[in-house]
């Protein structure tokens, strides 16, 4: 082979490598893969176009929003102070990982089974509906020694320790934190399904770890779901829960995060939206005073506002809303302690 031919061959190879990367790293590539799968009557593993920007796909969050029963087992016991998490962070993540794991097919669960076996845990217990979340939490605790960030630990559990260790090392080499996006970029395409489930696991794990913004025993005057709107009339989706608290009650951040929005309007009143990462956000409406500003970092349990009666409201209350991948979901689904809810028209 002459030198010129060798050069052409190399150029061709690099062009093909770029096409391969584009198939997995661009929305256009995902579209092409979907087209190919459709043409060949196969199931496409390509994500939706908008899923390229951010965590869990909204369609997945829709299924969580529509699921009829709480995922967490109820617990009878003493009530929690405001801002206290209902589960330990590790167990919350364990629930998330278990849900993510169960969404994978048997072949894609192989790395997780292997990790469990290596650490002396029973792979079948990991998949058990009751024991699974606890086993996953135990495994995450074991993995924490090698994978300090929870993102890396989840990747290690779902993709296997070797790929996760490699991804973690690459993220460090880039000077980035071992967060899922950085880890996912370092992994080859064959881990696409596991990475997607890792995203969902982290979203659910973050949601399970959310505390309650006011005292645990606070009465819910209007639950999440379709209701007859007391002011507008007609059936509307109530996107959160209304908590009956007197004006001036301190509202606590239900999780660590960043203030994505601190604003006021005639409908929501003084409103705060906190971004907790991994596609989880919470909203607190009708406050009388906001104690944090946009862009500010908050810790779990930190006082962020005083409740009130501002905006479109018929009485003092706090409208608390949980959003997964932008979709409002019932905050009670992520509460461990069952709360009594009045099923009336309630506060707007």
């Amino acid at each position, binding site marked *: 082979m*002459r030198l010129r*031919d060798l050069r*052409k*061959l*190399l*150029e*061709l*190879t*690099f*062009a*093909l*490598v*770029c*096409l*391969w*990367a*584009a198939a997995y*790293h*661009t*929305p*256009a*590539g995902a579209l092409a893969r979907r087209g190919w799968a459709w043409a060949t009557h196969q199931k496409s593993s390509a994500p939706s*176009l*908008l899923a*390229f*920007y*951010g965590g869990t796909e*909204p369609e997945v969050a829709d299924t969580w929003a529509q699921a009829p029963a709480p995922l967490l087992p109820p617990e009878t016991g003493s009530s929690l102070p405001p801002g206290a998490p209902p589960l330990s962070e590790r167990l919350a993540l364990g629930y998330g990982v278990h849900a993510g794991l169960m969404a994978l097919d048997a072949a894609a669960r192989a790395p997780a089974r292997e990790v469990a076996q290596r650490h002396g845990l029973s792979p079948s217990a990991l998949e058990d509906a009751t024991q699974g979340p606890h086993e996953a939490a135990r495994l995450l605790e074991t993995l924490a020694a090698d994978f300090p960030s929870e993102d890396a630990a989840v990747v290690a559990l779902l993709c296997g320790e070797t790929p996760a260790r*490699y*991804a973690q090392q*690459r993220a460090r*080499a*880039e*000077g980035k934190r071992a967060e899922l996006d950085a880890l996912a*970029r*370092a*992994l*080859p*395409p064959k881990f696409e399904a596991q990475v997607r489930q890792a995203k969902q696991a982290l979203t659910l794990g973050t949601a399970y770890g959310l505390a309650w913004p006011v005292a645990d025993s606070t009465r819910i005057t209007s639950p999440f779901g379709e209701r007859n709107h007391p002011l*507008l009339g007609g059936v*509307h989706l109530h*996107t959160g829960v209304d908590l009956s608290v007197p004006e001036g009650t301190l509202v606590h951040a239900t999780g660590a995060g960043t203030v*994505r*929005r601190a*604003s*006021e*309007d*005639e*409908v*929501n009143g003084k409103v705060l*939206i906190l971004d907790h990462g991994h596609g989880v*956000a919470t*909203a607190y409406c009708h406050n009388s005073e906001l104690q944090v500003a*946009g862009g500010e970092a908050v810790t779990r349990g930190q006082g962020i506002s005083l409740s009130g009666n501002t905006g*479109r409201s018929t009485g003092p209350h706090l409208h608390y809303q949980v*959003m997964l*991948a*932008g*979709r*409002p979901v019932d905050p009670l689904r992520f509460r461990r302690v069952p709360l009594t809810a009045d099923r009336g028209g309630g506060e707007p």
Partner: protein
Amino acid sequence: MPGSARDIRFRPPPPPQREGVFASLLSLVRWAVLPFGLVALVAVGVHAAADTVDDRLLLAVEGADAWLDRLLGTWDATRAFVDLIGPAERLWAARSLTLGWELVVDLLLAWPVITYRAPGSGSAGERRRVWAQVRARPSPMLVLRPLATAAVCLAGACAVAQMAQGTFYLSTLDVLGDAAGPLARGLAVAVLAGVLLSLGWRAVVGSFQDACDSVADSPSRKAALARGLWGSALSVPLAVAALLDASPVLAFFR
């Protein structure tokens, strides 16, 4: 157009000399695949950059919605519209904006390179003619567009090299053991350099050629200055993001 950049427009490959079947086939496949490879490189780079700005766009959408809610909430007649745009719509809008931005920049930067043909000789005479044209019709587009293309090509090459490194390392670790790490790193550096040398420069030259053609068509010097400003305004921020957040070149040596 004598004296313009069109003179050094990519030319078709020279007529084949006495080549073997393999060489002819290779030339043909390369000729067919190379433009797609160039577009893929640009697309990967643009996406790597867009991926770093999506959170900032969500914040911007959130801010715009807060402003709109305040405005619409003022009057009874418009108050109902406040509920129309919820968190799901805001997220959708932010993601759609990012996707739209990415696709527009893809089009702006990849289109000029899709018509790639083998370059001309690049002789001193040709270079002088191009320089004369640039002086006659100076335009920011002549600098910004190739630079933006260069930035996204660098980000794209990094993403491609990262993918090659990860795939190689994790597929050969069992066989090669400890040697897999250094070999994978070497492969990544080779892919990074190879992609930039074989495709990256062509994309930049193609972009410059297209900018020259576009500016040459301007009716006046003033029109040439304003040529491509909107396109540059869209592509330059992503190019900056590509350079700052999506080009971990040094990481391949660590």
